């Protein structure tokens, strides 16, 4: 993307130079064009750096999460839209934050959710609870209240009956930190 932008800028400058040449009958390096070119290159560079920065940050966070999940559940988990972690984005009291976990599943003998692991990586004690379901549960959905020591991303890992692990997450900002 950055390459393309620089390429476009270069092409544009060349094009303008050619127009200039036709107008004046000579190839003239206008300071204005060079400035514009330099500015654009600089902007592209800065934009690219920001992109790279954000990308690296997100990748770092994702890797840290995966490492945590690997350590706590004993295997990797795939982020999935089937796992819903519902928590208020901002909540006043970290001592008792309402939380709902839903995993879209038919909950039949052949295809059901076995366990949902809930983690609060920002707490001094990271595992919050394991919820174990059976096909007789009917729905893989629970609601409870948890303690959060600080604002953080809460992670839920669902272990399915076929052995796969799906992951969901939600960020919550707490105003008063709850001692976990």
């Amino acid at each position, binding site marked *: 993307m950055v390459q393309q932008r620089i390429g476009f800028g270069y092409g544009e400058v060349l094009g303008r130079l050619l127009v200039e040449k036709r107008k004046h009958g000579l190839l003239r390096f206008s300071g204005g064009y060079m400035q514009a070119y330099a500015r654009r290159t600089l902007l592209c560079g800065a934009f690219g750096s920001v992109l790279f920065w954000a990308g690296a940050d997100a990748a770092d966070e994702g890797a840290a999460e995966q490492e945590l999940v690997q350590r706590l559940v004993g295997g990797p988990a795939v982020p999935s839209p089937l796992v819903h972690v519902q928590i208020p984005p901002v909540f006043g009291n970290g001592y008792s934050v309402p939380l709902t976990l839903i995993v879209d599943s038919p909950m039949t003998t052949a295809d059901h959710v076995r366990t949902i692991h809930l983690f609060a990586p920002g707490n001094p004690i990271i595992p919050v609870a394991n919820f174990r379901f059976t*096909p007789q549960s009917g729905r893989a959905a629970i609601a409870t209240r948890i*303690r959060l020591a600080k604002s953080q991303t809460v992670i839920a890992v669902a272990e399915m009956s076929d052995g796969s692990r799906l992951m969901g997450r939600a960020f919550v900002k707490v105003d008063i930190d709850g001692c976990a």
Partner: protein
Amino acid sequence: MAGGQPRVQAPGEVAKDEVFEVRTLITHPMETGLRHDPAGHLIPRNIINSFTCRYNDVVVFSVDLHEPMSANPYLSFHVRAGQSGRLQFIWEEDGGAVFTLEKPITVAA
């Protein structure tokens, strides 16, 4: 304080194969073991570490609770109606204390 006043809200009568919601609450301080008393001594951990729901003696839902669960742990979950019978709710505390509650359930034919 040991707490241990369980409360359960569940429908008394349900249709066959209906999935119904069960809401449970138990009074308990859920002491994390991370806090100190005013004299500076660590307050030992004392939490409800396990919850089980049995439907006609078959475990249908259970939870391992850890320290970050709030005091007076509230749990809402679902059960699919099978046969008429009873729902049993069991909370286990650190140190082995057990709190139980039973609810009859009627399944309309």
